[in-house]
Structures are given as structure tokens and as C-alpha cells.
């Protein structure tokens, strides 16, 4: 299972240290099971969850192919919810609500992709302004390979 999770980690880490990471994790898990039973096993997996959040999620969410649709859907859902909430207050029956639905949906449907794309581009621009001088040569080389 750890090998499967590892496939979501940064490519440079998997390429250079993947085999060692799997070995280290399996040894640590086995040792925890022997020494502390289930609490030990849970401790190892909980620590792994922290590493997953720190290393894998930034890699996955940096992909525009994932971020733009996800963000589009999220913004669309929020706008629809707000509009439906407003409509329910002012439209007395379900029938009138259904009549208004096309208009309610149209504006969010066409505007959210642009909003989502603008947010992604803005966040990428901010990332580029980060001080890269603190990274090692290896990390800078890897970052430049994965540039948008």
C-alpha cells in the first residue's frame, strides 16, 4: 500500500530514493507492530499521513489538469448554492423556482471557469515570487522541470 501512495509523491524523490523509502517504511512498520502492536502501527500510518499532506498533496494540486476542473466545480457549487438560497427566499413555490432555474444556472456556468483559471494563474505567479535561493541545486533543478 505504501508503494501505491509513493506513486503520488514527487518524481525526483521516487526516482532517487523510492526503493529505500519502501524498505525503510516496511521495516519501521514491522518494528512498530512487534514492539507496540496496533497503537504502534497506527502511529506509523499517522506519521505517514502527515508526510502525504506535506509532500504528495502539493504535487497533485499543482497540476493544472486537476486544479482548474476541481476549482471550477467548487466555485460553481458555491455560486449555485448562494443563488438557490436567495431564490428560495423570494420564490414562493417549487414551480416558480424551476422556471427560474435556467437563469440561475447560466451565469455561474459560464463565469466560474474564468474565475477558476484566474485564481490558478494568480497563485502560480505568487509561487514564482518565492525566494528560490534557499533551495539546493538539486531542488531547483527539479522545480524548473515541473514548471507550468
Amino acid at each position: 500500500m505504501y508503494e501505491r501512495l509513493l506513486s503520488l509523491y514527487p518524481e525526483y524523490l521516487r526516482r532517487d530514493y523510492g526503493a529505500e523509502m519502501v524498505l525503510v517504511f516496511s521495516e519501521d512498520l514491522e518494528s512498530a507492530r512487534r514492539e507496540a502492536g496496533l497503537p504502534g502501527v497506527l502511529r506509523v500510518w499517522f506519521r505517514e499521513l502527515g508526510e502525504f499532506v506535506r509532500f504528495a498533496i502539493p504535487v497533485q494540486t499543482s497540476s493544472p489538469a486537476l486544479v482548474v476542473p476541481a476549482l471550477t466545480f467548487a466555485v460553481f457549487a458555491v455560486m449555485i448554492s448562494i443563488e438557490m438560497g436567495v431564490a428560495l427566499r423570494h420564490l414562493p413555490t417549487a414551480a416558480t423556482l424551476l422556471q427560474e432555474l435556467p437563469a440561475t444556472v447560466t451565469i455561474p456556468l459560464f463565469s466560474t471557469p474564468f474565475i477558476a483559471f484566474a485564481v490558478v494563474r494568480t497563485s502560480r505567479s505568487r509561487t514564482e515570487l518565492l525566494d528560490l535561493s534557499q533551495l539546493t541545486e538539486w531542488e531547483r533543478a527539479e522545480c524548473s522541470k515541473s514548471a507550468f
Partner: protein
Amino acid sequence: MIMSRSDPPLPPATFFILFALTSGEKHGYAIMRESRKLSDDSFQLGPATLYTTIQRLLDSKWIEEAPGPEDGDPRRRYYRLTKQGRWALDHEVRRMEALVKKSIALRLLSVGAKS
């Protein structure tokens, strides 16, 4: 990488990996175990943190790869401290020692007090 008095403290992962290697060359899992032991279980290194930090230390030439035993697992790589790494660790330990002395002088910490 040359350290000076104005350099910030070493991150915990860096410090404990260097500390773990003072007793000789080790592979990744042994470094992880030794770090946990040295920190009295208060600091846990995961594989990703461990190897990201190892790569940084290799780039900084504070550690280097060591040959390891001939009959060892080929998947394992062994690492050892370099002179620069030993110096950096020594610098950090002296910084901590100075802090402890200041804490005692300011009566934040009693000499011989048990936690």
C-alpha cells in the same frame, strides 16, 4: 556550505541525522532508529523527510555515501559524516550549549533540575 554565527539553527531533521551519524556510517532505517533514540522518541522521521534531508545534506557535502558491508542489502545505501558535516554539528551543539548557559544565568533553568 559554511556556517557562521548569524546562520539560523539547524532544522530538527538535519540536526538529528547529523547527530545519528556521529557514531558511524548508517543506512536510512538505522538513521531513523537512532534519531528516535537520541530524541527520546520525541522526534519521528518519516521516509520522505529522511531522504529529502539526506539529499540536501549530500548537496551541501555535510554527508557522503559510504560503501557499506559487502554482503549487505543492495537496496540500502550507507551514509557518513564529512568533515564539514561534523563541523556544522559541532557548531550547532555549541550554540545549544550557549543557550543552556544563558537559560541558567537568567534562572529559566536550574542546574541539575529534573523535568
